[in-house]
């Protein structure tokens, strides 16, 4: 199961931040259209960066802790997951803090 470790970290990030939506009242998962567009707007340039960084050897991925499934251009599925999950966590955090400070949730 070691090879699912990177994906497991990403799954944990989704699970741990879920209460921000359903307990603290952030409205991120409930705006799927805006969420997908927001993720795409940052994930695409960051994946381009990732492709270049991987090609130039800035970073590599543990064969033990990743699935080895390459989506395209040397980018592992874990990285694509990262650029979807981390933006969701960021938006949920901002949404929850806004709600708690009485600013509503945009």
């Amino acid at each position, binding site marked *: 199961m070691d090879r699912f470790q990177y994906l497991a970290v990403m799954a944990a990030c989704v699970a741990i931040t879920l209460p921000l939506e359903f307990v603290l009242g952030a409205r991120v998962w409930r705006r799927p259209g805006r969420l997908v567009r927001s993720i795409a707007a940052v994930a695409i340039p960051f994946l381009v960066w990732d492709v270049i960084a991987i090609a130039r050897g*800035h*970073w590599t991925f543990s064969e033990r802790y990743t699935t080895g499934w390459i989506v395209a251009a040397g980018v592992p599925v874990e990285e694509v997951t990262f650029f979807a999950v981390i933006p969701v966590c960021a938006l949920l955090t901002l949404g929850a803090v806004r709600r708690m400070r009485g600013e509503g949730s*945009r």
Partner: protein
Amino acid sequence: MPEYTLATLGAMLVAVVVDLRVLRTRLLTQRTFLLSLGIMFFFQIFVDGWLTKLSSPIVIYAAEHASGIRVFFDSPIEDFGFGFALILGVCSVWDALAARDARRGGRP
């Protein structure tokens, strides 16, 4: 300057320009956003640390392409600039889309 360091500074600059000048969401002037950013950085210490810890790294960084400054659980300091750009970027786009929807008379 190492390439990852340079790319990180570039990404941070782009994110700041997008927030303040391009989309004009001005998140960097809002205390609520800065508080959120602080919370996210706190959690990044552990999530990023799990990925980068030198005892059993998931992501392995080439020494020649980074500053070599590793913080907390061996995270390259650049990772926090990378996180800053990713967080500020997505929040800025989100708010810009929300503002556009509000102008169209949709949900705020």
